[in-house]
């Protein structure tokens, strides 16, 4: 894998090739291995190694980017010229800032004591195909013991993210990641579990397999229950996949573009008083690089406090534009928070290290079930898409373990529902929450979220299984 010293050497070669006023290089890459199984056998098993550099050049208000995974000198020269050719022909943008230097970056750090924990684990990086096959074998054995069919993955990866710019700023991040997900299939039902961590030792394939198997068995012979408004208990993966759709709107550029559901709503009681959300890359259950696409350090930002949206996040340029805009006085503190995408881009920024606050009295899912007269327990949600961008109505399906709760007990599996639910409505109707955990789904990025009990969740249709 590319080292920081090697990257620094490549950056110096890039600088020599460039005639631009400023140059920035983002380095990316690493290795990924993934063992995939279905029908109780390994059917796909892959590994890749890749690394590259993305070069941004800037000439007085004009900027562009070009990327390559060829790191020989000729290719570096070509990629620099490609970037410059794209930049030179543009009309100058008076709002484009000079690249940040180290001083600007360091002055923007609000709490220097907050640093992320170690996220690189050599054993995780070194996990072999044989070790993955052994873990898959355990999952398959659980399936066979329960007369089920299983499908899933076990992956491990190591990767780097690095940034260097011609004003002397540089930063480097190395990380590992491991992930297991498993689906257990019965004749007319299924169950699912997924977990990931920078450290493979935190993953327990047997426990995941047993839980998924139990869900498949318990949801067998699903009943068809009429759609309507139900109290639902959403397990953390279900919460993460649906709430993830709103965080694209928690950036200053989304407000400026008037494409955010937070336009004219910052500072209002938008959600229930029990909802608190922070973006915090240093949280022990979070993951990812501590710097953004320009090299600014990601700051901890309290986004929602007691149901009131207090702040959104900002790239450097967005913060400047927001201060000058008609929205500037209505959106809370405006300061670069280190959440920008690499430039140039039209999206601005977003918070991607979401941590939901712990409730005063966290309840386990079982406690929530016990306190529910009639409702639905939802394992995961699927194929979520936005129906209405301002009311934040989302549609999607339940999947892999949906259960009817009656009189404080799980009574039966039910056929999967389609929902059309406003996130504003949903987060105003949270009756109970669990302790936040690191959760992983398929529709949104990983977060630290609790299970939630939500009243009047809007199921509009039911499917055939």
């Amino acid at each position, binding site marked *: 894998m590319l080292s920081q010293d090697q990257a620094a050497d490549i950056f110096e070669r890039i600088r020599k090739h460039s005639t631009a006023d400023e140059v920035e290089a983002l380095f990316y890459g690493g290795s990924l291995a993934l063992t995939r199984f279905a029908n109780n056998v390994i059917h796909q098993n892959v590994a890749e190694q890749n690394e590259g550099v993305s070069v941004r050049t800037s000439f007085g208000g004009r900027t562009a980017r070009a990327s390559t995974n060829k790191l020989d000198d000729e290719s570096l020269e070509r990629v620099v010229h490609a970037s410059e050719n794209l930049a030179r022909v543009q009309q100058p943008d008076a709002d484009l800032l000079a690249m940040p230097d180290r001083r600007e970056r360091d002055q923007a750090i609000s709490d220097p004591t907050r640093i992320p924990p170690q996220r690189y684990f050599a054993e995780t990086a070194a996990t072999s195909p044989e070790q993955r096959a052994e873990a898959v074998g355990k999952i398959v054995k659980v399936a066979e013991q329960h007369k089920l069919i299983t499908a899933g993955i076990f992956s491990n990866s190591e990767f780097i993210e690095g940034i260097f710019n011609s004003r002397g700023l540089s930063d480097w991040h190395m990380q590992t990641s491991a992930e297991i997900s498993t689906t257990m299939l019965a004749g007319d039902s299924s169950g699912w579990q997924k977990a990931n961590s920078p450290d493979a030792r935190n993953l327990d394939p047997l426990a995941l397999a047993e839980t998924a198997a139990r869900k498949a068995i318990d949801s067998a012979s699903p009943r068809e229950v009429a759609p309507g408004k139900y109290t639902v208990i959403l397990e953390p993966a279900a919460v993460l996949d649906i709430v993830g759709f709103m965080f694209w709107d928690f950036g200053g550029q989304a407000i400026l573009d008037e*494409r955010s559901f937070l336009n004219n709503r910052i500072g209002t009681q938008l959600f229930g008083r029990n909802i608190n959300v922070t973006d915090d890359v240093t949280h022990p259950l979070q993951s990812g690089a501590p710097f953004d696409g320009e090299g600014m350090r990601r700051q901890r930002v309290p986004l929602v406090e007691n149901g009131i949206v207090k702040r959104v996040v900002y790239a450097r340029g967005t913060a400047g534009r927001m201060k000058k805009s008609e929205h500037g006085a209505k959106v809370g503190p405006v300061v670069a928070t280190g959440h920008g995408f690499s430039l140039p881009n039209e999206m601005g920024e977003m918070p991607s290290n979401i941590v939901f606050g712990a409730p005063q009295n966290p309840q386990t899912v079982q406690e929530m079930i016990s306190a529910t007269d009639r409702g639905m327990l939802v394992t995961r949600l699927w194929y979520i898409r936005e129906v209405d961008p301002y009311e934040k109505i989302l549609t999607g399906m339940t999947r892999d373990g949906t259960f009817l709760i009656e009189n404080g007990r799980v009574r039966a599996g039910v056929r999967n529902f389609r929902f059309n639910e406003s996130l504003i409505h949903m987060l105003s109707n949270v009756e109970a929450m669990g302790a936040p955990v690191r959760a992983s789904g398929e529709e949104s990025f990983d977060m630290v979220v609790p299970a939630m009990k939500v009243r009047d969740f809007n199921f509009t249709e039911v499917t055939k299984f």
Partner: protein
Amino acid sequence: MNEILGRALNLAAQRGASYADARIVDDRSRSLATKNGKLGHASDAESQGIGVRVIADGAWGFAASKDLSRAVVEDTAARALAIARASARVKQEDVRLAPEKAVTAEWATPYRIDPFTTSIEQNLDLLLRIDAELRAVSGVTLAETSMNFKREDSWFASSEGANIHQTKISTGAGYAAYAFAGTEIMKRSYPNSFGGQWQNKGYELIDELKLVENARRVAEEAVALHQAAQCPGGVSTIILDSSQLGLQIHESIGHPIELDRVLGMEANFAGTSFLTLDKLGRLRYGSELVNVVADARQEHGPGLGTFGFDDEGVPAQCTPIITHGLFTGYLSSRETAHIIGANRSGGTLRAECWNRLPMIRMTNISILPGEKPLALEQLIADTDDGIYMETNKSWSIDDKRYNFQFGCEIGWEIKKGKRGRMLKNPSYSGITTEFWNSMDAICSRDEWTLWGTPNCGKGQPQQVMGTGHGASPARFRGIKVGSAYRGN
């Protein structure tokens, strides 16, 4: 490139692989975008590497590297072998491949204008002219435009003797106008939403799309939607424009016919399919008017699913999927063909890039146009009461591909054969086979467009693939509309 491919295949053979193939891919792309009169992004990207796929001990292994040096290529092949042998620890049967004649071939996308030779300045100028047209309409609060080019060179060789070089070019462009007022954000897109129109063509596509000419109308519609009535709920006759019908095909025909989904190989992520093997040749998928093909051949058109050979060296083919309403075909590969009794792959195995394992993907999944001349306006004139819906806004379908819900950007009421008042937030939902069986009219070839879907996600690690979908506007009876807003 042949020498590099040969090294990988030789190493695999020496180490005992019963089959091996190797692909070198050299990708180049350009992406330009504007927003509200300024540059959104401008980027070039290139990526090159080799992927080696082997069967050893009856199981698959795949390894990929960006490094084409002799030592690394041989190491990559050796890694693929080691991975295959680890796979064999958890297997039941040996992998079987349907026979395929090994060929030596060259194939390239026909195009008139290489998009990478066009002036970046002129490209940006065109996007900014569109942007100006959009923002000239009072009430437009956000204007976005984009233009994308891609060139992929691939060299494929197999231990069976195949040697194929292909060059594919694709081009895409589109734009959207947003209007935020009160408590609503309205949007109109052209020629299609979520990236516009994409085809395997050169820059000539940009000229054909009449982008500037349509910008003012599209922006005016975005603003006018604020004054439009809410689409009513209930059961209605609907007519879908060809782009929305293209996405309907993608979701409710294209994905369920993927044989890997049917066989449970995608159960953990993309899902399975209601099209179990017993349904082939028996299921009444749609009405008599529904004729759908999976056609990767150039004669079908310049779709994103058009190629000479798939990524295991099988020539492009046309497979009848639905024939006069009867379900007649799956998308298959060399590994899966025998399961449906086929003696040959349907030629649909494709990979996103050099670093991804090829898997069954849609090619061009298209509904054939009606044989009798029928224009959209004639179809509307033939409809007493209904709703015409245009341009996708949201899409969702369950993991077996039964229950779907689509939202469109705009609708118009149809009363007594006339297009009436504009409707906002139109949506419809249903069950796949019930929906396709309700189709009672489809427009003819003049209204048929081969749409490109550049962003189809599937697989773990996930791969994004371009697919093509030809469609004409069509009419469906007794469809549930408006569920998306019910109860909110």
